[in-house]
Protein backbone atom coordinates (compact mmCIF):
# COMPACT_ATOMS: atom_id res chain seq x y z
CA UNK A 1 0.00 0.00 0.00
CA UNK A 2 2.77 2.37 0.99
CA UNK A 3 4.50 2.10 -2.39
CA UNK A 4 1.53 3.46 -4.29
CA UNK A 5 1.85 6.82 -2.58
CA UNK A 6 2.79 9.65 -4.82
CA UNK A 7 5.47 12.01 -3.51
CA UNK A 8 3.00 14.81 -3.36
CA UNK A 9 0.60 13.12 -0.98
CA UNK A 10 1.16 14.36 2.54
CA UNK A 11 -1.73 12.72 4.31
CA UNK A 12 -3.79 9.82 3.12
CA UNK A 13 -7.02 8.84 4.87
CA UNK A 14 -8.27 5.37 4.14
CA UNK A 15 -11.71 4.05 4.99
CA UNK A 16 -11.88 6.05 8.20
CA UNK A 17 -14.74 5.52 10.65
CA UNK A 18 -14.88 7.51 13.88
CA UNK A 19 -17.13 6.99 16.87
CA UNK A 20 -17.78 8.67 20.18
CA UNK A 21 -19.46 5.90 22.16
CA UNK A 22 -22.28 4.69 19.92
CA UNK A 23 -22.47 7.85 17.88
CA UNK A 24 -20.76 7.62 14.54
CA UNK A 25 -19.12 10.96 13.82
CA UNK A 26 -17.40 10.16 10.53
CA UNK A 27 -18.06 7.24 8.18
CA UNK A 28 -16.12 5.65 5.33
CA UNK A 29 -13.90 8.60 4.68
CA UNK A 30 -11.27 8.39 1.96
CA UNK A 31 -9.25 11.40 0.94
CA UNK A 32 -5.76 12.64 0.27
CA UNK A 33 -4.11 15.88 1.25
CA UNK A 34 -1.26 17.13 -0.94
CA UNK A 35 1.92 18.94 0.00
CA UNK A 36 1.70 22.73 0.01
CA UNK A 37 -2.01 22.94 -0.53
CA UNK A 38 -4.76 24.48 1.52
CA UNK A 39 -7.55 21.98 1.85
CA UNK A 40 -10.71 23.66 3.12
CA UNK A 41 -13.26 21.53 4.88
CA UNK A 42 -16.77 22.95 4.97
CA UNK A 43 -20.06 21.62 6.22
CA UNK A 44 -22.80 22.38 8.73
CA UNK A 45 -22.48 21.79 12.46
CA UNK A 46 -22.16 18.13 13.45
CA UNK A 47 -20.90 17.16 10.03
CA UNK A 48 -17.77 15.62 11.55
CA UNK A 49 -15.27 18.09 10.12
CA UNK A 50 -13.66 19.07 13.44
CA UNK A 51 -13.65 15.44 14.56
CA UNK A 52 -11.85 14.59 11.34
CA UNK A 53 -9.31 17.33 11.96
CA UNK A 54 -8.65 16.25 15.53
CA UNK A 55 -8.11 12.70 14.36
CA UNK A 56 -5.16 13.80 12.26
CA UNK A 57 -3.11 14.96 15.27
CA UNK A 58 -4.64 12.27 17.50
CA UNK A 59 -6.25 14.79 19.82
CA UNK A 60 -9.50 12.80 19.82
CA UNK A 61 -7.72 10.11 21.76
CA UNK A 62 -8.16 12.29 24.84
CA UNK A 63 -11.85 11.39 24.86
CA UNK A 64 -12.20 8.08 26.69
CA UNK A 65 -15.03 6.78 24.47
CA UNK A 66 -13.42 7.63 21.12
CA UNK A 67 -13.03 4.77 18.65
CA UNK A 68 -11.32 4.77 15.29
CA UNK A 69 -11.34 2.32 12.38
CA UNK A 70 -9.45 2.60 9.15
CA UNK A 71 -6.14 4.37 8.89
CA UNK A 72 -4.45 7.72 8.43
CA UNK A 73 -1.03 7.81 6.81
CA UNK A 74 1.41 10.66 7.17
CA UNK A 75 3.89 10.36 4.28
CA UNK A 76 3.04 6.67 4.10
CA UNK A 77 3.43 6.03 7.79
CA UNK A 78 0.45 5.00 9.92
CA UNK A 79 -0.04 7.81 12.46
CA UNK A 80 -0.78 5.26 15.15
CA UNK A 81 2.72 3.87 14.71
CA UNK A 82 4.30 7.28 15.33
CA UNK A 83 4.80 8.53 18.86
CA UNK A 84 1.91 10.80 19.80
CA UNK A 85 4.16 13.68 20.86
CA UNK A 86 5.91 13.52 17.49
CA UNK A 87 2.64 13.43 15.57
CA UNK A 88 1.43 16.53 17.37
CA UNK A 89 4.72 18.28 16.75
CA UNK A 90 4.54 17.50 13.04
CA UNK A 91 0.87 18.40 12.76
CA UNK A 92 0.36 21.71 14.53
CA UNK A 93 -3.10 22.93 15.43
CA UNK A 94 -4.75 26.32 15.75
CA UNK A 95 -7.99 26.21 17.70
CA UNK A 96 -11.32 27.94 17.10
CA UNK A 97 -10.96 30.40 19.92
CA UNK A 98 -7.63 32.07 20.56
CA UNK A 99 -6.19 30.17 23.47
CA UNK A 100 -3.09 31.88 24.75
CA UNK A 101 -1.75 30.40 27.96
CA UNK A 102 -1.68 32.95 30.81
CA UNK A 103 2.02 33.54 30.22
CA UNK A 104 4.01 36.26 28.53
CA UNK A 105 3.99 36.55 24.74
CA UNK A 106 7.54 35.21 24.67
CA UNK A 107 6.79 32.27 26.93
CA UNK A 108 3.70 31.35 24.93
CA UNK A 109 5.71 30.97 21.76
CA UNK A 110 8.71 29.42 23.47
CA UNK A 111 6.44 26.88 25.18
CA UNK A 112 6.55 24.28 22.41
CA UNK A 113 10.30 24.51 21.67
CA UNK A 114 11.00 24.30 25.40
CA UNK A 115 8.92 21.14 25.67
CA UNK A 116 11.07 19.70 22.92
CA UNK A 117 14.22 20.41 24.86
CA UNK A 118 15.46 23.77 23.60
CA UNK A 119 16.80 25.73 26.57
CA UNK A 120 19.23 28.21 25.03
CA UNK A 121 17.73 31.67 25.45
CA UNK A 122 19.32 32.94 22.24
CA UNK A 123 17.92 30.12 20.14
CA UNK A 124 14.51 30.64 21.73
CA UNK A 125 14.65 34.35 20.98
CA UNK A 126 15.36 33.63 17.34
CA UNK A 127 12.47 31.16 17.14
CA UNK A 128 10.13 33.65 18.79
CA UNK A 129 11.09 36.43 16.41
CA UNK A 130 10.86 34.26 13.31
CA UNK A 131 7.49 32.80 14.33
CA UNK A 132 6.02 36.19 15.13
CA UNK A 133 7.23 37.58 11.83
CA UNK A 134 5.64 34.81 9.80
CA UNK A 135 2.39 35.32 11.71
CA UNK A 136 2.47 39.10 10.99
CA UNK A 137 2.63 39.91 14.69
CA UNK A 138 6.28 40.90 15.16
CA UNK A 139 5.80 44.63 14.58
CA UNK A 140 2.95 44.83 17.05
CA UNK A 141 4.50 42.59 19.68
CA UNK A 142 8.26 43.11 19.55
CA UNK A 143 8.27 45.76 22.27
CA UNK A 144 6.01 43.87 24.62
CA UNK A 145 7.32 40.31 24.50
CA UNK A 146 7.34 40.12 28.29
CA UNK A 147 3.78 41.31 28.69
CA UNK A 148 0.98 38.86 29.30
CA UNK A 149 -0.41 37.40 26.10
CA UNK A 150 -3.88 37.95 27.52
CA UNK A 151 -3.44 41.69 27.01
CA UNK A 152 -3.43 41.26 23.23
CA UNK A 153 -6.63 41.77 21.23
CA UNK A 154 -8.57 38.76 19.97
CA UNK A 155 -7.09 38.92 16.48
CA UNK A 156 -3.59 39.39 17.83
CA UNK A 157 -4.12 36.46 20.19
CA UNK A 158 -5.09 34.22 17.29
CA UNK A 159 -2.00 35.25 15.34
CA UNK A 160 -0.01 34.57 18.51
CA UNK A 161 -1.48 31.07 18.54
CA UNK A 162 -0.44 30.62 14.91
CA UNK A 163 3.07 31.79 15.80
CA UNK A 164 3.10 29.39 18.74
CA UNK A 165 2.16 26.53 16.45
CA UNK A 166 4.85 27.53 13.94
CA UNK A 167 7.48 27.65 16.67
CA UNK A 168 7.63 23.85 16.91
CA UNK A 169 8.27 23.68 13.14
CA UNK A 170 5.38 21.49 12.04
CA UNK A 171 4.89 20.10 8.54
CA UNK A 172 1.13 20.44 8.52
CA UNK A 173 -1.02 23.08 10.19
CA UNK A 174 -4.57 22.20 11.16
CA UNK A 175 -6.83 25.21 11.48
CA UNK A 176 -10.05 24.54 13.37
CA UNK A 177 -12.41 27.41 12.47
CA UNK A 178 -9.64 29.86 13.29
CA UNK A 179 -11.63 33.01 12.55
CA UNK A 180 -14.94 32.16 14.18
CA UNK A 181 -14.34 34.69 16.94
CA UNK A 182 -12.65 37.38 14.91
CA UNK A 183 -13.70 40.59 13.19
CA UNK A 184 -13.33 40.91 9.38
CA UNK A 185 -10.01 42.78 9.52
CA UNK A 186 -8.42 40.24 11.84
CA UNK A 187 -9.89 37.51 9.67
CA UNK A 188 -8.24 39.01 6.59
CA UNK A 189 -4.89 39.05 8.38
CA UNK A 190 -5.21 35.42 9.41
CA UNK A 191 -6.16 34.47 5.85
CA UNK A 192 -3.19 36.39 4.50
CA UNK A 193 -1.00 34.47 6.92
CA UNK A 194 -2.42 31.16 5.72
CA UNK A 195 -1.75 31.98 2.07
CA UNK A 196 1.83 32.82 2.93
CA UNK A 197 2.28 29.68 5.03
CA UNK A 198 1.20 27.52 2.11
CA UNK A 199 4.65 27.86 0.54
CA UNK A 200 6.25 25.99 3.40
CA UNK A 201 3.45 24.03 4.99
CA UNK A 202 0.47 21.88 4.18
CA UNK A 203 -2.71 23.37 5.55
CA UNK A 204 -6.05 21.87 6.46
CA UNK A 205 -8.66 24.52 7.19
CA UNK A 206 -11.95 23.60 8.80
CA UNK A 207 -14.29 26.53 8.47
CA UNK A 208 -17.91 27.47 8.98
CA UNK A 209 -17.41 30.35 6.64
CA UNK A 210 -18.07 29.19 3.08
CA UNK A 211 -16.65 32.38 1.65
CA UNK A 212 -13.43 31.84 3.53
CA UNK A 213 -13.08 28.41 1.94
CA UNK A 214 -13.60 30.02 -1.44
CA UNK A 215 -11.00 32.70 -0.73
CA UNK A 216 -8.11 30.61 0.53
CA UNK A 217 -8.72 26.94 -0.29
CA UNK A 218 -6.96 25.24 -3.21
CA UNK A 219 -9.36 22.38 -2.86
CA UNK A 220 -12.54 22.16 -0.84
CA UNK A 221 -14.16 19.19 0.85
CA UNK A 222 -17.82 19.24 1.76
CA UNK A 223 -18.85 17.14 4.77
CA UNK A 224 -22.44 16.35 5.67
CA UNK A 225 -23.55 14.19 8.59
CA UNK A 226 -20.20 12.49 8.87
CA UNK A 227 -19.82 11.77 5.19
CA UNK A 228 -17.62 13.33 2.57
CA UNK A 229 -20.06 14.45 -0.11
CA UNK A 230 -17.66 16.04 -2.50
CA UNK A 231 -14.00 16.99 -2.77
CA UNK A 232 -12.67 18.98 -5.69
CA UNK A 233 -10.79 22.08 -6.76
CA UNK A 234 -12.27 25.07 -4.97
CA UNK A 235 -13.30 26.90 -8.15
CA UNK A 236 -15.09 23.76 -9.35
CA UNK A 237 -16.91 23.29 -6.03
CA UNK A 238 -18.08 26.87 -6.05
CA UNK A 239 -19.00 27.15 -9.72
CA UNK A 240 -20.05 23.71 -10.83
CA UNK A 241 -20.44 21.26 -7.94
CA UNK A 242 -21.18 17.70 -8.96
CA UNK A 243 -23.54 17.09 -6.07
CA UNK A 244 -26.87 18.79 -5.48
CA UNK A 245 -26.26 18.79 -1.70
CA UNK A 246 -23.02 20.71 -2.14
CA UNK A 247 -24.72 23.31 -4.26
CA UNK A 248 -27.55 23.67 -1.75
CA UNK A 249 -25.09 24.19 1.09
CA UNK A 250 -22.88 26.76 -0.56
CA UNK A 251 -25.93 28.62 -1.86
CA UNK A 252 -27.12 28.76 1.74
CA UNK A 253 -30.22 26.70 1.13
CA UNK A 254 -29.60 24.66 4.33
CA UNK A 255 -27.17 24.30 7.18
Amino acid at each position, binding site marked *: MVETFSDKVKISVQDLHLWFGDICAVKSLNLEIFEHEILSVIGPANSGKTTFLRTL*NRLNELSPNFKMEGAVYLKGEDIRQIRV*TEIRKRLGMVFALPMP*LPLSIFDNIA*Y*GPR*MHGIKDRKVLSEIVERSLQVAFLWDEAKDRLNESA*LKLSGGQQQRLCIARTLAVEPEVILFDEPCSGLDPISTAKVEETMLKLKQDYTIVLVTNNVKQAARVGDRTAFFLMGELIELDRTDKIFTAPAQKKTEDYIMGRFG
Partner: protein
Amino acid sequence: MKSLAKQKIAFTILFLATILVIVPVGLILILIFRDGSSAISWRFISSMPANGMREGGIFPAIVGTFYLVIGATLVSLPLGVMAAMYLSEYSKDTLLTRTINLAIVNLAGVPSVVYGLFGLSLFVTYFKFGVSILSGALTLAIMNLPVIISASREAFQSVPYSFREVSLSLGASKWQTIRYSVLPFALPGILTGAILSLARAAGETAPILFTVAAFYLPSLPRSIFDQAMALPYHLYVISTQIPNIRLDFRYGTALVLVMIVFSMNIFAVIIRFQFRKKKKW
Protein backbone atom coordinates in the same frame (compact mmCIF):
# COMPACT_ATOMS: atom_id res chain seq x y z
CA MET B 1 -48.50 45.87 47.42
CA LYS B 2 -49.01 42.65 49.26
CA SER B 3 -46.33 40.82 47.31
CA LEU B 4 -43.96 43.70 47.86
CA ALA B 5 -44.45 43.41 51.61
CA LYS B 6 -43.85 39.69 51.41
CA GLN B 7 -40.66 40.30 49.52
CA LYS B 8 -39.48 42.72 52.17
CA ILE B 9 -40.12 40.21 54.92
CA ALA B 10 -38.29 37.51 52.99
CA PHE B 11 -35.28 39.75 52.43
CA THR B 12 -35.19 40.69 56.09
CA ILE B 13 -35.21 37.06 57.17
CA LEU B 14 -32.44 36.17 54.73
CA PHE B 15 -30.41 39.15 55.87
CA LEU B 16 -30.81 38.22 59.53
CA ALA B 17 -29.76 34.64 58.78
CA THR B 18 -26.60 35.99 57.17
CA ILE B 19 -25.88 38.36 60.03
CA LEU B 20 -26.25 35.45 62.43
CA VAL B 21 -23.09 33.94 60.95
CA ILE B 22 -21.04 36.94 61.97
CA VAL B 23 -22.41 37.13 65.51
CA PRO B 24 -20.73 34.04 67.01
CA VAL B 25 -17.40 34.85 65.38
CA GLY B 26 -17.56 38.38 66.71
CA LEU B 27 -18.64 37.32 70.18
CA ILE B 28 -15.90 34.71 70.47
CA LEU B 29 -13.28 37.23 69.45
CA ILE B 30 -14.61 39.94 71.75
CA LEU B 31 -14.87 37.60 74.72
CA ILE B 32 -11.42 36.12 74.30
CA PHE B 33 -9.89 39.49 73.68
CA ARG B 34 -11.61 41.12 76.66
CA ASP B 35 -10.51 38.46 79.13
CA GLY B 36 -7.23 37.47 77.57
CA SER B 37 -5.52 40.56 76.23
CA SER B 38 -4.27 41.61 79.68
CA ALA B 39 -2.19 38.40 79.87
CA ILE B 40 -0.47 38.97 76.56
CA SER B 41 3.07 40.19 76.95
CA TRP B 42 6.43 39.33 75.47
CA ARG B 43 7.16 37.33 78.61
CA PHE B 44 3.92 35.34 78.24
CA ILE B 45 4.75 34.38 74.67
CA SER B 46 8.45 33.76 75.09
CA SER B 47 9.04 32.11 78.44
CA MET B 48 8.56 28.68 79.97
CA PRO B 49 5.67 27.98 82.33
CA ALA B 50 6.48 28.33 86.00
CA ASN B 51 4.97 27.51 89.36
CA GLY B 52 2.73 24.65 88.20
CA MET B 53 1.89 26.56 85.00
CA ARG B 54 0.18 29.28 87.01
CA GLU B 55 2.88 31.75 86.07
CA GLY B 56 5.44 32.24 83.36
CA GLY B 57 4.50 31.78 79.71
CA ILE B 58 3.34 29.40 77.04
CA PHE B 59 6.44 29.35 74.83
CA PRO B 60 6.83 25.54 74.67
CA ALA B 61 3.18 25.12 73.66
CA ILE B 62 3.59 27.63 70.82
CA VAL B 63 6.76 25.88 69.67
CA GLY B 64 5.08 22.48 69.86
CA THR B 65 2.10 23.61 67.79
CA PHE B 66 4.49 25.15 65.29
CA TYR B 67 6.43 21.89 64.95
CA LEU B 68 3.23 19.89 64.55
CA VAL B 69 1.88 22.15 61.81
CA ILE B 70 5.19 22.09 59.93
CA GLY B 71 5.45 18.32 60.27
CA ALA B 72 1.87 17.73 59.17
CA THR B 73 2.40 20.04 56.18
CA LEU B 74 5.57 18.29 55.07
CA VAL B 75 3.75 14.98 54.99
CA SER B 76 0.22 15.81 53.88
CA LEU B 77 0.87 18.49 51.26
CA PRO B 78 3.05 16.48 48.82
CA LEU B 79 1.05 13.32 49.42
CA GLY B 80 -2.27 15.08 48.98
CA VAL B 81 -1.21 16.99 45.86
CA MET B 82 0.15 13.84 44.23
CA ALA B 83 -3.04 11.93 45.01
CA ALA B 84 -5.16 14.79 43.69
CA MET B 85 -3.02 14.99 40.56
CA TYR B 86 -3.55 11.31 39.93
CA LEU B 87 -7.29 11.51 40.52
CA SER B 88 -7.77 14.63 38.42
CA GLU B 89 -5.37 14.07 35.54
CA TYR B 90 -4.67 10.37 35.20
CA SER B 91 -7.42 8.20 36.63
CA LYS B 92 -10.32 7.04 34.53
CA ASP B 93 -13.79 6.54 35.89
CA THR B 94 -13.45 3.00 37.18
CA LEU B 95 -14.70 1.09 40.19
CA LEU B 96 -11.32 1.67 41.85
CA THR B 97 -11.50 5.44 41.34
CA ARG B 98 -15.01 5.52 42.73
CA THR B 99 -13.89 3.50 45.74
CA ILE B 100 -11.05 5.93 46.30
CA ASN B 101 -13.45 8.88 46.09
CA LEU B 102 -15.77 7.21 48.58
CA ALA B 103 -12.83 6.59 50.91
CA ILE B 104 -11.78 10.24 50.72
CA VAL B 105 -15.27 11.48 51.52
CA ASN B 106 -15.56 9.08 54.44
CA LEU B 107 -12.08 9.85 55.71
CA ALA B 108 -13.10 13.50 55.91
CA GLY B 109 -16.05 12.51 58.07
CA VAL B 110 -14.13 10.48 60.66
CA PRO B 111 -14.27 12.18 64.10
CA SER B 112 -10.94 13.62 65.14
CA VAL B 113 -10.74 11.60 68.32
CA VAL B 114 -10.84 8.44 66.19
CA TYR B 115 -7.78 9.75 64.33
CA GLY B 116 -6.17 10.17 67.71
CA LEU B 117 -6.80 6.54 68.62
CA PHE B 118 -5.68 5.43 65.17
CA GLY B 119 -2.44 7.39 65.56
CA LEU B 120 -1.92 5.88 68.97
CA SER B 121 -2.23 2.32 67.76
CA LEU B 122 -0.40 2.74 64.44
CA PHE B 123 2.39 5.26 65.00
CA VAL B 124 2.89 5.21 68.76
CA THR B 125 2.48 1.50 69.41
CA TYR B 126 2.92 -0.44 66.18
CA PHE B 127 5.67 1.62 64.53
CA LYS B 128 7.14 2.31 67.98
CA PHE B 129 7.54 6.04 67.34
CA GLY B 130 6.34 6.52 70.91
CA VAL B 131 4.38 9.52 72.06
CA SER B 132 6.31 11.99 69.93
CA ILE B 133 6.17 14.90 67.54
CA LEU B 134 6.54 12.42 64.70
CA SER B 135 3.48 10.44 65.74
CA GLY B 136 1.43 13.59 66.31
CA ALA B 137 2.42 15.20 63.02
CA LEU B 138 1.66 12.01 61.10
CA THR B 139 -1.74 11.72 62.78
CA LEU B 140 -2.58 15.33 61.93
CA ALA B 141 -1.32 14.76 58.39
CA ILE B 142 -3.65 11.81 57.86
CA MET B 143 -6.54 13.78 59.27
CA ASN B 144 -5.74 16.58 56.82
CA LEU B 145 -5.19 14.42 53.79
CA PRO B 146 -8.81 14.17 52.58
CA VAL B 147 -9.27 17.93 52.84
CA ILE B 148 -6.06 18.66 50.96
CA ILE B 149 -6.89 16.09 48.30
CA SER B 150 -10.36 17.53 47.73
CA ALA B 151 -9.13 21.12 47.63
CA SER B 152 -6.23 20.26 45.32
CA ARG B 153 -8.39 18.25 42.99
CA GLU B 154 -10.81 21.14 42.71
CA ALA B 155 -7.87 23.43 41.98
CA PHE B 156 -6.66 21.10 39.22
CA GLN B 157 -10.10 20.86 37.70
CA SER B 158 -10.60 24.61 37.72
CA VAL B 159 -7.71 24.95 35.25
CA PRO B 160 -9.41 25.21 31.85
CA TYR B 161 -9.29 22.05 29.77
CA SER B 162 -8.10 24.12 26.81
CA PHE B 163 -4.72 24.69 28.52
CA ARG B 164 -4.14 20.95 28.42
CA GLU B 165 -5.25 20.73 24.79
CA VAL B 166 -2.98 23.57 23.74
CA SER B 167 0.00 22.04 25.48
CA LEU B 168 -0.63 18.56 24.10
CA SER B 169 -1.26 19.92 20.61
CA LEU B 170 2.23 21.44 20.67
CA GLY B 171 3.67 17.99 21.19
CA ALA B 172 4.21 18.19 24.94
CA SER B 173 3.94 14.93 26.82
CA LYS B 174 1.21 14.40 29.36
CA TRP B 175 3.58 14.94 32.26
CA GLN B 176 5.03 18.10 30.71
CA THR B 177 1.49 19.35 30.20
CA ILE B 178 0.60 18.77 33.83
CA ARG B 179 3.89 20.18 35.05
CA TYR B 180 3.90 23.37 32.97
CA SER B 181 0.28 24.03 31.95
CA VAL B 182 -1.80 22.75 34.85
CA LEU B 183 0.18 22.71 38.10
CA PRO B 184 1.35 26.36 38.02
CA PHE B 185 -2.21 27.57 37.55
CA ALA B 186 -3.62 25.21 40.17
CA LEU B 187 -0.98 26.05 42.77
CA PRO B 188 -2.67 29.07 44.41
CA GLY B 189 -5.85 27.05 44.89
CA ILE B 190 -3.89 24.15 46.31
CA LEU B 191 -2.02 26.40 48.74
CA THR B 192 -5.18 28.15 49.88
CA GLY B 193 -6.88 24.84 50.61
CA ALA B 194 -3.81 23.46 52.33
CA ILE B 195 -3.33 26.47 54.59
CA LEU B 196 -7.00 26.50 55.62
CA SER B 197 -6.93 22.82 56.52
CA LEU B 198 -3.64 23.13 58.39
CA ALA B 199 -4.97 26.08 60.33
CA ARG B 200 -7.77 23.83 61.46
CA ALA B 201 -5.26 21.14 62.36
CA ALA B 202 -3.31 23.61 64.48
CA GLY B 203 -6.31 23.95 66.76
CA GLU B 204 -7.19 20.26 67.03
CA THR B 205 -6.88 18.62 70.44
CA ALA B 206 -8.14 15.08 70.07
CA PRO B 207 -5.65 13.80 67.46
CA ILE B 208 -2.66 14.97 69.50
CA LEU B 209 -4.03 13.92 72.86
CA PHE B 210 -2.63 10.36 72.75
CA THR B 211 0.08 10.82 70.17
CA VAL B 212 2.25 13.76 71.18
CA ALA B 213 0.86 16.13 73.75
CA ALA B 214 2.59 16.41 77.10
CA PHE B 215 0.91 17.76 80.23
CA TYR B 216 4.01 19.67 81.17
CA LEU B 217 7.63 19.58 80.00
CA PRO B 218 10.42 21.42 81.72
CA SER B 219 12.35 21.87 78.46
CA LEU B 220 11.76 22.19 74.74
CA PRO B 221 11.69 19.04 72.56
CA ARG B 222 15.09 18.18 71.10
CA SER B 223 14.10 15.75 68.33
CA ILE B 224 11.04 14.53 66.49
CA PHE B 225 10.94 11.55 68.85
CA ASP B 226 10.33 13.80 71.85
CA GLN B 227 7.00 14.68 73.32
CA ALA B 228 5.88 18.25 72.99
CA MET B 229 3.40 20.61 74.52
CA ALA B 230 0.82 22.09 72.18
CA LEU B 231 -1.49 25.07 72.48
CA PRO B 232 -4.89 23.40 72.27
CA TYR B 233 -3.96 20.73 74.77
CA HIS B 234 -2.25 23.24 77.02
CA LEU B 235 -5.44 25.29 76.99
CA TYR B 236 -7.41 22.21 77.95
CA VAL B 237 -4.98 21.41 80.77
CA ILE B 238 -4.88 24.82 82.35
CA SER B 239 -8.64 25.20 82.02
CA THR B 240 -9.57 21.91 83.65
CA GLN B 241 -6.64 20.44 85.54
CA ILE B 242 -5.02 23.40 87.31
CA PRO B 243 -7.14 24.91 90.07
CA ASN B 244 -6.93 28.58 90.93
CA ILE B 245 -5.27 29.67 87.73
CA ARG B 246 -5.73 33.25 86.68
CA LEU B 247 -8.59 33.77 84.23
CA ASP B 248 -6.54 35.88 81.86
CA PHE B 249 -3.96 33.08 81.55
CA ARG B 250 -6.58 30.81 80.08
CA TYR B 251 -8.05 33.41 77.80
CA GLY B 252 -4.61 34.66 76.90
CA THR B 253 -3.67 31.15 75.74
CA ALA B 254 -6.90 30.93 73.76
CA LEU B 255 -6.18 34.33 72.24
CA VAL B 256 -2.73 33.23 71.04
CA LEU B 257 -4.17 30.06 69.52
CA VAL B 258 -6.98 31.93 67.79
CA MET B 259 -4.55 34.52 66.49
CA ILE B 260 -2.30 31.85 64.99
CA VAL B 261 -5.25 30.21 63.26
CA PHE B 262 -6.62 33.55 62.11
CA SER B 263 -3.35 34.73 60.68
CA MET B 264 -3.04 31.49 58.71
CA ASN B 265 -6.56 31.99 57.36
CA ILE B 266 -5.86 35.59 56.45
CA PHE B 267 -2.68 34.48 54.69
CA ALA B 268 -4.78 32.03 52.65
CA VAL B 269 -7.26 34.79 51.78
CA ILE B 270 -4.41 37.04 50.63
CA ILE B 271 -3.01 34.33 48.35
CA ARG B 272 -6.44 33.78 46.85
CA PHE B 273 -6.97 37.50 46.39
CA GLN B 274 -3.62 37.99 44.67
CA PHE B 275 -4.37 35.07 42.40
CA ARG B 276 -7.84 36.34 41.46
CA LYS B 277 -6.32 39.67 40.51
CA LYS B 278 -3.95 37.99 38.06
CA LYS B 279 -6.33 35.35 36.79
CA LYS B 280 -8.04 36.40 33.59
CA TRP B 281 -9.25 33.24 31.92
